[in-house]
């Protein structure tokens, strides 16, 4: 799986997708996993009578936090500081990585244990730590699998969704030195547990992300299923949390809404098994040093776009990913961002300014709308995709823009439109056989023709038929 490799260079989506489509094993794993999880989600959501009101509340409180982010973050900083934590501000990935690396170095450790965190994936923290001589060990089972394989996560919530258990057994046999290991889920989990237990007991510094942070109390929340996150947030002496600034919610009470929306939308559970909430430090209980790194890294750019900012409501549940018919074919690696699927296609170009391959992501969608239907915070993902497309076409003026310009000009006048219709009929006539076109000139028509025939342009347009009918 070349493109799954952590070091693979980012490519535009269509090319990366072509490679992904060739991997039948990954596609089979994905279809199976996403079908199971979307059914579970639907059941879990359908049993909540006021689900739509909950979504309204979730969207409303996130919007409230985002539109007053300047005050919210200062309030959060004050609360965390009051309770014995230290807040650091990072404008971009480099500043965040430097801050964390410095803090780790100050502790003089060679190993840190990590809670699954998208924000740290986004900034490439593991690479920065490794470069500084510190070994990061992922404690989330799936994230550990991906790390041991030297790959990138392919799903927000289930980073190793592209691997089946035989592949995981082979990986553990090799990387954990267990040549006799079987492929039963129980055996695989036990192997990972034995490995991680030693890590938890022997590691003084942990790094986490955050699902939410409450501005009023300074409490930070991590939601997970395995309990490994709980180990990381309680056992070590030092806890460093890297959090995107959009994760702040106004009050502790708002968790009432968010903790109903998130588990049902993500794993299809009424409640997730482990919810860790900590507020600063407590003498004699848990980590005695707490650092909170607040990460911007493009988020304030997104905030400045009055349409695009809705993407910052996202609570990373991955419901949109599991229902996306494009993601279900390609998997996450084709997106070349930790935020794959529909949410990645609207978030990543806003975070990195849409320079480079992420400019292809807003086009990696049919605008079918399945994502918007399941989003727990009502992000109108298709509308945001179109908004991102607008930004891309406004930057590039290529042959496509020229074509759309010509077409637009034709559509602005009946005379030109009817002439274009006659021209289309004339041009394709030599290519048509038996009412169908099967061979095409280079360009968009050939791309169409790779998998589809095209009916020949009929001899009479509808309007010509209407005209002749009116005359008789």
């Amino acid at each position, binding site marked *: 799986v070349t493109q799954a490799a952590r070091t693979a260079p980012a490519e535009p*989506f269509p090319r990366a*997708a072509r490679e992904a489509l060739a991997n039948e094993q990954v596609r089979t794993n994905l279809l199976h996993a996403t079908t199971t999880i979307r059914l579970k989600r639907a059941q879990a959501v359908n049993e909540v009578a006021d689900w739509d009101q909950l979504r309204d509340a979730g969207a409303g409180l996130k919007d409230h936090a985002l539109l007053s982010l300047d005050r919210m973050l200062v309030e959060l900083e004050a609360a965390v500081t009051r309770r014995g934590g230290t807040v650091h501000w990072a404008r971009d990935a480099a500043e965040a990585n430097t801050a964390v690396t410095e803090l780790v170095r100050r502790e003089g450790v060679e190993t840190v244990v990590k809670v699954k965190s998208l924000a740290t994936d986004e900034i490439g923290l593991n690479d920065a730590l490794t470069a500084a001589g510190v070994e990061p060990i992922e404690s989330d089972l799936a994230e550990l699998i991906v790390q041991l394989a030297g790959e990138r996560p392919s799903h927000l919530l289930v980073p190793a969704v592209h691997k089946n258990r035989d592949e995981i057994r082979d990986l553990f046999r090799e990387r954990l030195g267990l040549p006799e290991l079987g492929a039963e889920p129980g055996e695989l989990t036990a192997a990972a547990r034995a490995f991680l237990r030693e890590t938890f007991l022997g590691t003084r510094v942990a790094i986490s992300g955050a699902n939410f942070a409450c501005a009023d109390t300074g409490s930070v929340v991590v939601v997970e299923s395995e309990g490994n996150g709980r180990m990381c947030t309680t056992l070590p002496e030092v806890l460093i949390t890297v959090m995107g600034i959009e994760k702040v919610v106004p009050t502790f009470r708002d968790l009432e809404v968010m903790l109903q929306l998130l588990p049902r939308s993500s794993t299809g559970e009424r409640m997730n098994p482990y919810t860790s909430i900590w507020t600063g430090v407590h003498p004699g209980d848990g980590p005695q040093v707490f650092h909170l790194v607040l990460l911007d890294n493009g988020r304030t750019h997104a905030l400045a776009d009055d349409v695009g900012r809705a993407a910052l409501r996202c609570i990373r549940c991955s419901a949109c990913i599991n229902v996306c018919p494009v993601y279900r074919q390609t998997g996450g690696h084709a997106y070349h961002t930790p935020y794959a699927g529909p949410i990645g296609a609207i978030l990543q170009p806003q975070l990195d300014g849409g320079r480079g391959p992420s400019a292809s992501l807003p*086009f990696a969608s*049919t605008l079918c709308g399945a994502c918007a239907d399941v989003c727990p915070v009502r992000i109108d993902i298709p509308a945001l995709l*179109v908004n991102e497309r607008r930004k891309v076409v406004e930057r590039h003026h290529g042959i496509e823009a020229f074509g759309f310009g010509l077409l637009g000009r034709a559509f602005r006048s*009946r005379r030109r439109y009817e002439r274009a219709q006659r021209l289309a009929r004339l041009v394709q006539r030599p290519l048509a056989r038996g009412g169908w076109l099967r061979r095409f000139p280079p360009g968009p028509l050939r791309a169409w023709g790779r998998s*589809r025939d095209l*009916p020949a342009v009929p001899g009479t*347009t509808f309007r010509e*038929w209407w005209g002749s009918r009116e005359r008789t």
Partner: protein
Amino acid sequence: VSCALFITCLTDTLAPQVGRATVELLERQGVTVDFPREQTCCGQMHFNSGYVREARRLARRFVAVFGPYEDVVAPSGSCVAHVRTNLAGLAGDTDGVDERTWELSEFLVDRCGVTDVGSGFRGRVTYHPTCHSLRLLRVGHRPTSLLRAAAGVGLVELPDAEECCGFGGTFAVKNADVSAAMLEAKLDRVLATGADVVCACDSSCLLHIGGGLHRRGSHVRALHLAEVLAA
């Protein structure tokens, strides 16, 4: 009842038989159909592809052409969805025409109050709800209730019907490989039903599905709802 027919540029040019069926079907219900000859394109493709300036001009043109009519009917879920969802934002003053624009099955069931339209079609039909009629217009059971009321139509359920067929406008060529993979999945399910016809409410998706069926050498036909109902 009378209406203006918004034929859509794609049906006008590439699927005129769908337009003729729509006219026949509406007239058979006693609807007086008018066809404003100045109409061209609503601008959906420009809008969805990011060309908002062009989309704005075409939206204003749509208002100018169809504004004078009481009701506007189109045999396309996605074009009607564009008009209803985006016209106001693009054109400013819409004269209320966005709210008076109907998708064909909506117009028949809600405005004309019919479900049995007297179709003489005979055969097994499976119905694919196109994404924009399903999720933006929420046409719901209207198309299938029209099909069920046709005595000669044997309606066969399409598994995972609500999954997109992979057309998506320019997506079909910009991401041709993914589009093809989605289409193959859809066609496998269509063929497994054993239906003679796969029916939908959008000529654009049907172009993609029908083109895929023809490439496979299948005898299953991709027909618009209007064609099945007008037969």
